């Protein structure tokens, strides 16, 4: 069963009405075609209207929508089920919040890496809610180095409420693990594409987020802190999350405007969560086109362009 957010209620009502009309039509043999067409037109308009005017906080809610596709769903669809998952950081264990492995995109091998959330309560716990431990970041780096060795491009999917803040995570150097990834990703010899498909929370996201192309899906967020935590720190209360979401300029639109990401990928009219297939297709096309154009650039140049891009970020007075 689908889940509807509060601002999606008018959509749900219209969808229910259409279903009712269809049922009546079938049961009573009364011609309902016109009625249904009218309702569908209305639904289309209403959907457009709602999704055009989403507030930043509503976009944050969209990014966390339980019906949104998660990393493995993207990978399996894009690779046409040729994906093979690899496990473990070779030091401590296998982190279930981070997945990775090779797969084919249009007959070309690509390394896929990403944070993975669970689809139900049990799986959410198993995946630690998409919050990796240091070994998750180290597994990611190990796989990136593997891809570099065999000259395969890398695609990362970012969807995390943050790196895990546990006791063992600190013992095993969460900070160092993320720092090392940022440093190494900056200098990877192969093309790197990073796609934010849901939540892009701070260092936890950046730990697999340094690439030649960093791109956000339309209804996602990416910032230095979640609006809830920002509210609790700056306003000293959890009640200002909407305000914090506004202030952080965390939407794809704002991040692109501030040149902190390279592109924004349009979602289906009613969001990625209502039409997975269309979303997968958009992402797949973007990936194969980007790889093609990035591979044309000479290796050294690609790396220095990547470094220059990040080094030009920032605004100051002097």
């Amino acid at each position, binding site marked *: 069963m689908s889940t509807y957010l509060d601002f999606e209620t008018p959509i749900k009502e219209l969808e229910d009405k259409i279903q009712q009309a269809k049922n009546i039509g079938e049961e009573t043999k009364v011609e309902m075609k016109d009625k249904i067409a009218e309702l569908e037109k209305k639904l289309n308009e209403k959907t457009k209207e709602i999704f055009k005017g989403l507030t930043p906080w509503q976009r944050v809610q969209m990014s966390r929508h339980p019906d949104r596709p998660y990393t493995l769903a993207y990978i399996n669809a894009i690779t046409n089920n040729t994906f093979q998952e690899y496990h473990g950081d070779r030091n401590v264990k296998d982190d279930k919040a981070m997945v990775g492995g090779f797969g084919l995109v249009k007959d070309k091998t690509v390394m896929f890496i990403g944070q993975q959330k669970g689809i139900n309560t049990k799986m959410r716990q198993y995946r630690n809610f998409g919050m990796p431990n240091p070994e998750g970041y180290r597994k990611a780096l190990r796989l990136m180095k593997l891809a570099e060795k065999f000259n395969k491009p890398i695609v990362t999917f970012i969807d995390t409420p943050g790196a895990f803040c546990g006791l063992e995570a*600190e013992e095993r150097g969460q*900070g160092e693990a993320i*720092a*090392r990834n940022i440093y190494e990703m900056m200098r990877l010899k192969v093309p790197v594409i990073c796609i934010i498909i849901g939540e892009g929370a701070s260092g936890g996201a950046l730990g697999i987020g340094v690439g030649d192309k960093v791109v956000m899906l339309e209804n996602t967020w990416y910032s230095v802190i979640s609006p809830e935590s920002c509210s609790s720190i700056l306003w000293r209360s959890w009640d200002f999350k909407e305000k914090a979401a506004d202030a952080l300029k965390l939407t794809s639109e704002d991040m692109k405007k501030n040149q902190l990401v390279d592109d924004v990928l349009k979602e289906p009219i009613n969001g990625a969560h209502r039409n997975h297939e269309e979303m997968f297709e958009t992402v797949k096309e973007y990936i194969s086109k980007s790889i093609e154009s990035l591979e044309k650039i000479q290796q050294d140049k690609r790396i220095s362009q990547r470094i220059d891009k*990040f080094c030009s970020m920032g605004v100051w007075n002097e």
Partner: protein
Amino acid sequence: MSWFKRKKEGITTSTKEKKETPEGLWHKCVNCKTLHTQQDFEKNTYVCNRCSHHERIGSEEYFKIIFDDNSFVELDVKMTSADPLQFSDTKKYTDRVQSTIKSTGLNDAIRTAQGKINGIDLVVACMDFSFIGGSLGSVMGEKISRAIDQSLKTNSAFMIISKSGGARMMEAGFSLMQMAKVSGKLGLLSEKKIPYISYLTDPTTGGVTASFAMLGDLNIAEPNALIGFAGPRVVKETIGRDLPEGFQKSEFLLEHGFIDYIVDRTELKEKLSHTLKLFQS
């Protein structure tokens, strides 16, 4: 019954004869409450000589400790924060920055300088916790980047003294990307085989720990400094139980393999210049 008895009544000192004790002549250690004269305390690099507590100090003091004869050239002195997001929480970001500049006399949470340590060329980027918690924003990112450029240009060793709560929320996405920016620059330093020493002091957390502070060729730390990714309060809330003693302190990080050595501030200059000599000789 008391041991001594006052014989003369009404002993008073006339106002004229009262001795003035200027403010700031004495320092009381916040840890063991021992009194030192300010002069002794400064001479001992702001470390209590009884309990070895390291008082939090800023860039001015660190530069004095490190650079020969306190002589150095400061870089990019005038750079200050812009407000790219027109950020406002309970206070406007621009107002917050202006009032902090006024109250601290600093222009941002970092100062960068070039000088010599026991004759060896060194570029230092040092944070000031008193400036919005030593937070990492565009200014810090850019100043460190340029300090690294200076290091590259003059072939001098590079050092960052970290003392920060993490990224500056008021610059949101811009602050986050400073982590990538500085890490990118450090790669260039590495290519040229110029040593980078990361000195972690109390406290170093958040985005600073998750980027350049952990990327030193050597990571060294002050004793008993809080160093971590998440702050201890957050970790405690996450795991729902009390934290072990010494958790996230320098000694804990040394034990877990993230710090090369811990150095008392009183020995910093000697030990650091010895390290640099070992890289050079």
